[in-house]
């Protein structure tokens, strides 16, 4: 290509610049080819003499499509266009993700639109434009596609919508869809539509006014004419003035009143009030209601259906006043040009001046007055206001505080009351926390208070102490959680009652000094029950001795007491409360030992004593470490632990020899009760004590101890689902019965054969129809009753063969929107169960309020029925068919086929193949 082609003359550069567009294609001097001859071949403007054939150079290489040899790059069949996702870095406006749909038929609903446009992409917003006055569709809609995934996807969806939905026919009108990025088009169209509506509205108003005016004029003229012709009673003459000239009306009425009454003998209360102009009223001209034919009562009767304020009349006619304009206008539209006593009445609607808003007429009258009057009036108004305010002030500022003062000054309710309150507040958390938390913190709290009480109580007479303590005890027991009370009661009934009696006997015998304490001690027989009161006792005792002993000293104090109590058990006064039960134990052990070698082998009271006094550490037996009273007491377990051999027992016996034996019945039983009581209080780990069956998860523990006494309560479905599948027998394992039986189906088949082969040529749908009709008469015998699956269920009362129709699901047929509403309402009303059955996308059968027993059929994951939607006489119906043979008494179930949802409804069908959830 070194040789340039001979250049064309360069003289005329201007006129045809494309002239020099030559290319030398063949130069014989470079390489001679015979086929092309000796002359060089030029291409001018892309045209050569032997026409050029352009070929894809890639086709020269037959292996080109395999790609570059030995490189991994794949062969591209076509050029790829580079696409950039729109993101925040992108330049330019965002691609449109909104479409504006117009020319929508007014019958199309937003839901329908949504349904159609959903196919193009996720819709994030669908603004269906409504006429703000009437709420009807404007035929405009703005749809925004969701940009959640990516903007370009939404844009694509929008484009697709424009492409495919334009021209789509919905309810007879072709949709028009355009891209509308910023919603301006929609806005404009909406404004335009609204403008049109408004102008129409205005025009209509104007027209109506015009018409009214015309009518009035005509009437006026008529009246003029008639008045001229005939002689009219004077009250009638007024009407051409007053009938239409409102400002003068009132004056005329009043001036003509006397005359009017002379002509129309009617009651006074019907006379027109002076301020009639300020009311909204309907006027019936007198010419339409001749006074000799139409009476007041007739008019009243005629208007009885409307809520009028009053009916007044004068010589001009009747005035029917209304409270609000709407009522008046509706009355006007319904009763205009109707007949009263064969007289056709024409109504005239009168609106209150300045509309209804500022229409309280008396105000207007009073408003503007000359100065002096205004002043005096204002003063009276002010004083009236002042009085009102003063009453309020006195109530709030004087009476209120006064009452409080009075209450404060009242003698305070008896201190015991307060006392009763305090533990009530403090104890609820008590029993549990005492066990779990360290002893040091909690127990102090009540003790301080108690001690104060103890001081108070110190001196009073014996009786008082007793009664007081009893009362206190009562309170305490009430304040405890229920299961404590329960235990208390059982104890009372079983043994402590007896003990109490014993104790009382003892009291009488012993010096009266500390009877009261004793009494309570005996009653508080369960270790955990006695804790508070017993603490009290300690403190009382401490404070007799050394009132200043406080917390830091507590431990040693206790030790002192323990020492005494354990070493000199015979001194009753100083015995800690649970020592009493202990003594009982000893006693019953004595009894027991006589009869049989009881389970207590090791016995050493001395040992115990030593332990306590020597190192101050304590023996707990099997008690948990921080058992509240374990620094002092031993219960049965403790004693069992302490008494190691016969010697121990002997010592113990010696120690307790002064104690009287109390009757505790069977010692074994007594001991058992102790232990179980302790166990129930949660003080003891399960091992070693009576073992309860392991919790299965659905074991309901009744706070009262008895399911019967619990009353009505709802078992949550979650709990039900744990045990229902185990017991549910609604699914019967398929035991296919003999086929020899004549089934109803065979019966029917026979019948059909008899009825001649009509159905041979029928279409399947019609065949369905026929079948249904045939079955209509053959509804199965069913009844509903409590179901194992869920509340009520439907049960077969006869054997149902496979494929037999069972029942039709009957209910109100409603649209989707209504169903949505209803569903909300039902939820609000607390109807938890759904009886809505969807037939198709927009039709739903609602059996909640109206329906048949088919609504009781429960869901099962292994159903024995199946619901089919069939057409009967053009209407879709839901019919339940047996999916297999159903035994008598078996519950009917079908698969609800709920769509999957986020919040799951647990399924309780109990089928082995249960999915676990309805949805």
């Amino acid at each position, binding site marked *: 290509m070194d040789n340039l082609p001979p250049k064309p003359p360069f003289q005329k550069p201007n006129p045809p610049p494309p002239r020099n567009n030559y290319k030398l294609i063949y130069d014989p001097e470079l390489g001679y080819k015979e086929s092309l001859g000796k002359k060089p071949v030029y291409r001018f403007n892309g045209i050569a003499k032997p026409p050029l054939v352009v070929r894809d150079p890639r086709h020269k290489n037959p292996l080109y499509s395999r790609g570059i040899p030995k490189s991994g790059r794949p062969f591209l069949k076509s050029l790829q266009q580079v696409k950039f996702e729109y993101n925040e870095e992108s330049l330019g406006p965002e691609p449109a993700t909104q479409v504006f749909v117009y020319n929508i038929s007014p019958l199309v609903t937003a839901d329908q639109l949504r349904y159609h446009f959903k196919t193009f992409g996720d819709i994030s917003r669908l603004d269906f434009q409504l006429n703000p006055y009437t709420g009807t569709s404007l035929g405009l809609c703005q749809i925004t596609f969701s940009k959640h995934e990516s903007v370009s996807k939404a844009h694509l969806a929008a484009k697709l919508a424009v492409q495919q939905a334009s021209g789509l026919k919905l309810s007879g009108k072709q949709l028009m869809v355009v891209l509308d990025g910023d919603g301006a088009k929609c806005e404009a169209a909406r404004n335009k539509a609204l403008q049109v509506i408004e102008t129409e509205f205005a025009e209509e108003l104007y027209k109506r006014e015009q018409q009214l005016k015309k009518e009035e004029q005509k009437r006026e003229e008529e009246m003029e004419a008639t008045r001229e012709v005939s002689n009219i009673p004077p009250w009638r003459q007024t009407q051409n003035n007053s009938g239409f000239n409102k400002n003068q009306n009132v004056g005329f009425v009043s001036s003509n009143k006397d005359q009017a009454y002379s002509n129309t003998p009617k009651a006074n209360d019907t006379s027109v009030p002076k301020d009639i102009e300020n009311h909204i009223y309907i006027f019936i001209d007198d010419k339409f209601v001749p006074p000799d034919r139409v009476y007041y009562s007739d008019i009243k009767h005629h208007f009885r259906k409307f809520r009028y304020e009053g009916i007044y009349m004068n010589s001009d006619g009747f005035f029917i006043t209304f409270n609000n304009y709407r009522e008046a206008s509706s009355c006007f539209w319904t009763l205009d040009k109707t007949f009263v006593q064969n007289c056709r009445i024409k109504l005239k609607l009168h609106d209150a001046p300045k509309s209804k808003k500022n229409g309280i007429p008396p105000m207007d009258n009073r*408003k503007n007055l000359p100065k002096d009057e*205004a002043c005096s009036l204002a003063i009276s108004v*002010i004083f009236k206001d002042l*009085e009102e305010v003063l009453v309020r*002030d*006195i*109530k709030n500022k004087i009476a209120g505080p006064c009452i409080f003062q*009075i209450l404060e000054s009242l003698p305070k*309710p008896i201190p015991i*009351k307060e006392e009763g309150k305090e533990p009530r507040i403090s104890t609820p958390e008590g029993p549990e926390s005492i066990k779990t938390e360290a002893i040091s913190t909690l127990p102090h709290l009540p003790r301080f208070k108690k001690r104060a009480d103890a001081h108070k109580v110190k001196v009073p007479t014996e009786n008082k102490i007793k009664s007081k303590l009893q009362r206190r005890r009562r309170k305490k027991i009430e304040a405890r959680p229920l299961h404590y009370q329960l235990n208390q009661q059982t104890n009372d009934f079983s043994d402590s009652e007896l003990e109490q009696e014993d104790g009382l006997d003892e009291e009488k015998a012993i010096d009266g000094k500390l009877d009261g304490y004793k009494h309570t001690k005996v009653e508080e027989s369960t270790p955990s029950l006695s804790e508070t009161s017993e603490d009290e006792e300690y403190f009382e005792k401490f404070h007799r001795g050394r009132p200043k002993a406080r917390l830091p000293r507590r431990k040693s104090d206790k030790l002192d007491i323990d020492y005494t109590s354990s070493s000199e058990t015979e001194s009753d006064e100083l015995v800690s409360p649970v020592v009493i039960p202990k003594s009982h134990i000893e006693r019953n052990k004595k009894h027991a030992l006589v009869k049989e070698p009881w389970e207590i082998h090791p016995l050493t009271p001395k040992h115990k004593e030593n332990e306590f006094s020597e190192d101050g550490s304590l023996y707990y037996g099997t008690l948990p470490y921080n058992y509240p009273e374990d620094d002092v007491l031993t219960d049965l377990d403790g004693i069992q632990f302490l008494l190691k051999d016969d010697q121990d027992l002997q010592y113990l016996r010696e120690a307790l020899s002064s104690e009287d034996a109390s009757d505790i019945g069977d010692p074994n039983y007594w001991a058992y009760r102790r232990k179980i009581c302790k166990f129930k209080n949660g003080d003891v780990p399960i091992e070693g004590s009576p073992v309860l069956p392991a919790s299965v998860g659905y074991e309901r523990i009744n706070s009262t101890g008895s399911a019967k006494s619990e009353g009505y309560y709802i078992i949550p479905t979650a709990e039900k689902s744990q045990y229902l599948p185990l017991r549910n027998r609604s699914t019967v394992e398929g035991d296919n019965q003999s086929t020899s039986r004549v089934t109803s189906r065979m019966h029917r088949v026979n019948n059909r054969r008899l009825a001649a082969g009509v159905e041979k040529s029928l279409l399947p749908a019609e065949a369905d129809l026929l079948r249904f009709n045939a079955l209509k008469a053959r509804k199965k015998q069913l009844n509903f009753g409590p179901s194992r699956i869920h509340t009520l269920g439907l049960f077969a009362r006869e054997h149902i063969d496979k494929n037999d129709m069972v029942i039709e699901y009957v209910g109100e047929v409603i649209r989707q929107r209504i169903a949505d509403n209803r569903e909300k309402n039902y939820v609000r009303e607390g109807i938890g169960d759904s009886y809505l059955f969807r037939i198709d996308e927009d039709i739903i059968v609602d059996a909640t309020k109206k329906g048949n027993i088919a609504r009781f059929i429960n869901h099962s994951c292994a159903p024995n029925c199946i619901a089919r939607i069939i057409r009967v006489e053009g209407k879709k119906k839901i019919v339940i068919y047996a999916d297999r043979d159903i035994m008598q008494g078996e519950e009917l179930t079908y698969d609800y086929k709920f769509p999957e949802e986020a919040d799951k409804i647990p399924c309780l069908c109990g089928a082995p193949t249960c999915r676990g959830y309805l949805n």
Partner: protein
Amino acid sequence: MELNKTVNVEDLVTRFKREGHFDRLRKLVLETFKEKESEGFAEQLRTIAETELEKDPSLKMKDHFRTAPLIAGAVDRTSLYENTMENIKNNILSQEELKVNVREAIKQLCYKETDGHQET
């Protein structure tokens, strides 16, 4: 001039209140009431409260914040407030001083208003 002489009563009253005369009046009356008659009033209250407490002894046991409204309700049901209001009307509100004061204030307002009209 004829037109200017009419005054809107409502406006007048609101103006009166807005300028604080009303509240001052209210405070004044309440103060005088407290000084002069509150003792008798308190006595009456006390008797009512006591009868009420006798009727229902359980009230004593309740919290004061609960009993107080109950007793207040009982007081409402008696004619105590009406009577005291009568008293106030007769004794305090009928004082010439007070009335004159109010009248003066209102007249001033009146003038202001009409003057304003004239100027505009």
